[in-house]
């Protein structure tokens, strides 16, 4: 038995249809999978992340369900989109389409086996088009099909297009418990467009997500990806900076315990001059959990004046946990500003003692220091409500996390009654 047994025979439509049709894309994906198969631990990009348990099961595609729509949130139920009912910002259109037309090329270009599997098997896709500045975020919730969640696979497909100067915040949560969630998000940013993309991976099944981003001149892509659960969770984030001055900022957090296995593979191609990429990854690993980070930046010939930074910091809280981290740069031009680095360590014993010597219990001191390790990436989230939501999501996974929330939530009316002002009055 194999997951590939669930592939349909090639449609054959490609021969009749025009080049670049949806049928072409599906046929190409099926052909790719038939020739390469699913990755094993011998596949370089999957050395540390086994998908064998999933690959050996012929998980059927989750059936469509009659889930009622949510007013504000796009729901993917078993991988099938259900559009919200409430009116939306005039700048944003949401559509459910049963094919992606000529699209899907990004996923195939990358020859990513699970992206190809998604292309072959997804039913309906969500297409988000943004023509101006969206006043409110678009929320997308990936949940499991209620009754058969344990034995099905969900293939969610999303395409996001931002016109020139458009802006959007996209918030995705993966919190179903399908045996397999294999999602693909394709993002195309027009000139000077800006997308802020938050993702949380809270699915206890196998979660394989791919995000493909193409950026035109002057555009910005800001990603915050958090992984808590997953057996395994694998994120492939690939960004192509195609227009001059395009920038991306890619932050990832893995806060993993138990047997959870998180793998973030991030790759940026600098294909135009004066483009900038910043990658930051932080992992906190407890128990027998594993965090993998592979960050690549490729500065392609002709892309002069680029900036590429990759930093991975890992906090290992257990001697049975595992961290694999590999930031790397490939530079084909002379004039580049680049930095990369990786650290793996335990909690700082001096800091722990300092907190305890002030009366803070050992467990609370560990919580404070662990959260402090992640805090910088939470603070980087521009939108206050989302920042708070992200913080709370992290704290809910951290033993004793309510301490940090209690400290932060009502303390600081400092600004209104400033001591230096008080001194001035005196």
């Amino acid at each position: 038995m194999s997951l590939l047994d669930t592939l349909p025979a090639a449609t054959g439509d490609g021969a009749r249809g025009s080049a670049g049709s949806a049928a072409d894309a599906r046929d190409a994906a099926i052909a790719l999978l038939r020739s390469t198969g699913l990755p094993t631990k011998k596949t370089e990009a999957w050395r540390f992340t086994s998908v064998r348990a999933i690959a050996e099961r012929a998980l059927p595609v989750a059936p469509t369900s009659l889930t009622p729509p949510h007013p504000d949130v796009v729901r993917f139920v078993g991988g099938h989109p259900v559009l919200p009912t409430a009116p939306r910002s005039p700048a944003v259109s949401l559509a459910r389409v049963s094919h992606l037309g000529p699209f899907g090329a990004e996923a195939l270009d990358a020859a990513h086996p699970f992206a190809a599997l998604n292309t072959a098997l997804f039913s309906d896709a969500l297409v988000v088009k943004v023509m101006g500045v969206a006043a409110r975020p678009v929320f997308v919730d990936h949940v499991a099909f209620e009754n058969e969640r344990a034995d099905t696979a969900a293939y969610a497909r999303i395409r996001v297009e931002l016109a020139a100067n458009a802006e959007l915040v996209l918030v995705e949560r993966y919190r179903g418990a399908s045996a397999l969630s294999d999602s693909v998000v394709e993002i195309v940013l027009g000139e000077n467009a800006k997308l802020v993309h938050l993702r949380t991976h809270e699915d206890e099944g196998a979660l394989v997500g791919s995000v493909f981003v193409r950026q035109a001149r002057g555009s910005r892509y800001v990603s915050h990806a958090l992984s808590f659960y997953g057996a395994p969770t694998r994120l492939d984030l690939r960004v192509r900076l195609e227009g001059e001055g395009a920038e991306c900022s890619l932050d990832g957090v893995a806060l993993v315990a138990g047997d959870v296995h998180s793998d973030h593979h991030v790759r940026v191609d600098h294909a135009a001059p004066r483009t900038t990429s910043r990658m930051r990854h932080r992992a906190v690993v407890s128990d027998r959990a594993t965090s993998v980070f592979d960050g690549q930046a490729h500065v392609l010939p002709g892309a002069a004046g680029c900036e590429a930074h990759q930093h991975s910091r890992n906090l290992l809280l257990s001697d049975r946990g595992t961290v694999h981290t590999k930031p790397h740069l490939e530079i084909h031009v002379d004039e580049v500003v680049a930095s990369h680095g990786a650290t793996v360590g335990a909690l700082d014993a001096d800091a722990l003692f300092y907190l305890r010597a002030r009366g803070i219990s050992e467990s609370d001191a560990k919580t404070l220091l662990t959260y402090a390790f992640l805090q910088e990436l939470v603070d980087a989230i521009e939108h206050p409500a989302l920042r708070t939501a992200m913080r709370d999501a992290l704290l809910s996974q951290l033993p004793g996390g309510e301490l940090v929330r209690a400290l932060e939530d009502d303390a600081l009316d400092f600004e209104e009654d400033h001591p230096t002002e008080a001194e001035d009055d005196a």
Partner: protein
Amino acid sequence: MLSIQNLHVEVGGKPILKGLTLELKAGEVHAIMGPNGAGKSTLSYVLAGRDGYEVKAGSITFLGQDLLAMDVSERAAAGLFLGFQYPVAIPGVSNLHFVRAALNAQRKARGEAELSAAELMKLAREKGKLVELPADLMKRAVNDGFSGGEKKRNEIFQMAMLEPKLAVLDETDSGLDIDALRVVASGVNALRSPERAMLVITHYQRLLDHIVPDRVHVLVDGRIVESGDKSLALRLEDEGYEKIRASAAISGAAS
């Protein structure tokens, strides 16, 4: 308040304190002076309960309790404060959150109600003035990017907030210029009270010009070899530690 009897401590199998005895009463300020390697910092860490300091013999009684049986945070809640020689920077934890967590943890351990945000801010503003700690330092991450003087002021600010019964100040003067020393010392002096004892550990006499001790003890090679009033500190400054070390060696050999 504090009674240390015949304390023997090893670090990494090496004897550092070799029979130290010391009595400190409420309201008193004692100074411990000594050359490098005499065991000054070891004494402060043993009092605070740091791992890696192995008590081989002797006892420490603090307010009638066996201090050595208590956990690090329990000692703090019981009223023991250690002012660090090298305060630790903690990026990501704001100074105010840290003090709030510490104060509330201590109050909780003593069965007292936690302070509200407003009460805490009022207290922080009041105590911040004692050591001229600017508002932005209170909001910044603990000691992160602080100068040497700012770190030491922050230690005394924390002490003022936590209102300990016994403050052990480990080389609080190290790394301070004369102006910072004056600010820190005046903060400490403001906290002297009949209910509070202080143990001021220092290498140099100059701190004791500002914080005038009731008693001065000289620690050499893990034991207190001489005790006296504040004039002992001045004598040490004149003569250096060599002379007292030599006479200690003689008396040690004779006994």
